[in-house]
């Protein structure tokens, strides 16, 4: 979920011999765990407040220790969430302006074509699915959803927490507007996570019961070649097959860079 830093510590020569790839650094894995825990706690304490007249919400709030405790938990983890987003921005700043890393999470026109090609493949109009680089369009959508959604949530949440301060400069209506943004954006985020993210990383055929990559950092060679064919080719110098690989390639082919470029053109 970030700007790619290719696992430079791994020597490319040995990539072909490994049966897994390290996709996420320890700091990125910790970042995900922090985000996951804060998201769940914020969603539970927040949705319970938004829908407090519902039986389940009332039950939750009363069992968490009442509305004031629920709000306290929500605000503490809102602080944690804000800090983790700030950390991420600092990390991005360093990656972009100091380390000049490749911006693999940046949406491109190619992602739009991938959506169309995925649909064409699904409906039998194309022979094979599009090939993806380090992050496919679904992962980019979720990442940017969290970035923009998170900003909306943080800003609107801050307005709700400091209504007198914000109305020193802005009209009063921004406060109920912030409440409208906050609750709706959170509802949308929870829906996207529950419907899509959990399908993608847990319930998808072949993945069930769980995709552990974000916790271990490791992705198998087979899945790497299937789901991130372009990145796989780039790392190994392997030529992706013309068909979607049914099994992991036993040996990497020559002239990977050229093949990867060709693949990108044909897929696009």
């Amino acid at each position, binding site marked *: 979920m970030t700007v790619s830093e290719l696992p430079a510590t791994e020597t490319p020569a040995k990539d072909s011999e490994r049966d897994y790839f390290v996709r996420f650094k320890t700091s990125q894995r910790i970042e995900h765990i922090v985000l996951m825990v804060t998201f769940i706690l914020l969603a539970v304490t927040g949705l319970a407040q938004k829908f407090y007249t519902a039986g389940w919400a009332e039950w939750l709030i009363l069992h968490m220790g*009442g509305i004031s405790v629920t709000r306290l938990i929500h605000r503490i983890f809102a602080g944690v969430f804000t800090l983790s987003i700030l950390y991420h921005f600092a990390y991005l700043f360093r990656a972009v302006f100091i380390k000049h890393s490749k911006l693999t999470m940046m949406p491109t026109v190619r992602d739009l074509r991938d959506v169309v090609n995925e649909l064409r493949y699904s409906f039998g109009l194309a022979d094979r699915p599009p090939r993806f680089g380090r992050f496919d369009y679904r992962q980019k959508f979720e990442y940017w959803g969290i970035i923009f959604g998170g900003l909306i949530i943080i800003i609107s949440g801050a307005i709700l927490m400091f209504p007198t301060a914000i109305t020193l400069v802005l009209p009063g209506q921004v406060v109920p*507007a912030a409440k409208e943004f906050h609750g709706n954006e959170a509802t949308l985020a929870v829906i*996207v996570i529950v419907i899509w993210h959990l399908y993608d990383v847990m319930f998808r055929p072949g993945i069930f019961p769980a995709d552990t990559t974000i916790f271990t950092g490791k992705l198998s060679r087979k899945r790497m070649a299937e789901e991130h064919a372009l990145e796989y080719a780039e790392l190994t110098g392997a030529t992706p097959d013309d068909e979607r690989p049914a099994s992991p390639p036993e040996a990497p082919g020559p002239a990977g860079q050229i093949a990867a470029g060709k693949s990108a053109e044909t897929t696009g």
Partner: protein
Amino acid sequence: MHIARIQLSASALWGAVLVGLITVAAIVITNSSRAAAQSPPPIPHPVAGQEQCLVCHGSQGLKPFPAGHAAFDEKSCVTCHSTASAGVKAQDCINCHAEKPLSMNLTGGEKLSLYVDGAEYETSIHGGKLICTDCHNYSGASTTSGAGTLAIASEYAHPSRDVANKREYSLALYEVCKRCHFDNYTKTLDSVHYQVLARGDQSAPICTDCHGAHNVSAPSQPRSKTSQTCAGCHQSLYEQYATSVHGTALIHDNNSDVPVCTDCHKSHTIEDPRTAAFRLESVQICSGCHSNETIMQKYGISTRVVKTYLEDFHGATVALQTKDNKDIWVNEAVCTDCHGVHNIVAVDSPSSPVIKANLVNVCRNCHADATENFPSAWLSHYEPTVHKAPLVYFIRRFYWVLIPFIVVGLLAHIVIDLWRTITNRK
């Protein structure tokens, strides 16, 4: 009912003999097989309007019938017990107590007037139903008390009362009300008035302070009477109320929709209104009328005021705390924090604390550093519309479209993905 001192005059003696003879004759004639010693006592009160004898004389009643009566039904009482010479009558007592100078010196030095206005009593709600001894129930004791011992010319015993002053006399006697009004009496035991009394403050109101004693009348006829009763002690609050939107409608228009004191504070279970619990529950008191469409439409008041309050931060906090620990004081505003309590005025009145020009001052009661911008953070019980709060309205509409759109899109993506996977496996 026996007495210590009877001044037997000749006529009384002859009267007693005559009654005795008639009684004996009646027993002999009507029931020669029954033991002659027992003659059923006459009914000592009027029976007109009180034909349901078992209300009082049933086994659970105030004066239960004696053992052995269980076999008789209600209608049979008057076959044995005579009603003709209806024993003690209110008038019997009035005969003496109509004398205005009649009084008793209490040990504390006060003089207790024993005068009773018989006509006033007869027009009271108890007139014709209760006789004096139903409340002044002097069974057994047989002395008079105080310095002003009177020659008791009647056959009725007057008990000794060890009371220092008139208030103690009232306090000693008021509990007789519970013999009939047990439910309301019990309710008063939970009231703030009883708490004051239990602390030893004798000025706390008891039944007779609000309802009167010999002049009891329907407490809410007319409705304004109720609030005037409370005004007897709570004068300054009554003056606020009398100028409020509720009070003026009651007093000037005899409006039957506006609340009198007891509509909010209840009549017998009057709670201490200064507690955290009362503060929380006050919202339900207001919404009792203000969410009632039938009442509110007469005055063009929206019933959404309750809903919009509960949807907002203040209302949500109060609603949740009400379901939690009611003894925790919530700082979030309840209705009365903004609108006032006894002095509530119409929201469009220039003197209203919540009219636009004044609202920021109300906000500053809690939000000390609120600016002129701040009050419009609250949508004044309006639901967002294009005109009232366009920003809020359009954000709501935006998500109203976006969320279903995203849900359908994501679900479609999943369905297509699964369908492709299944197709590939075939």
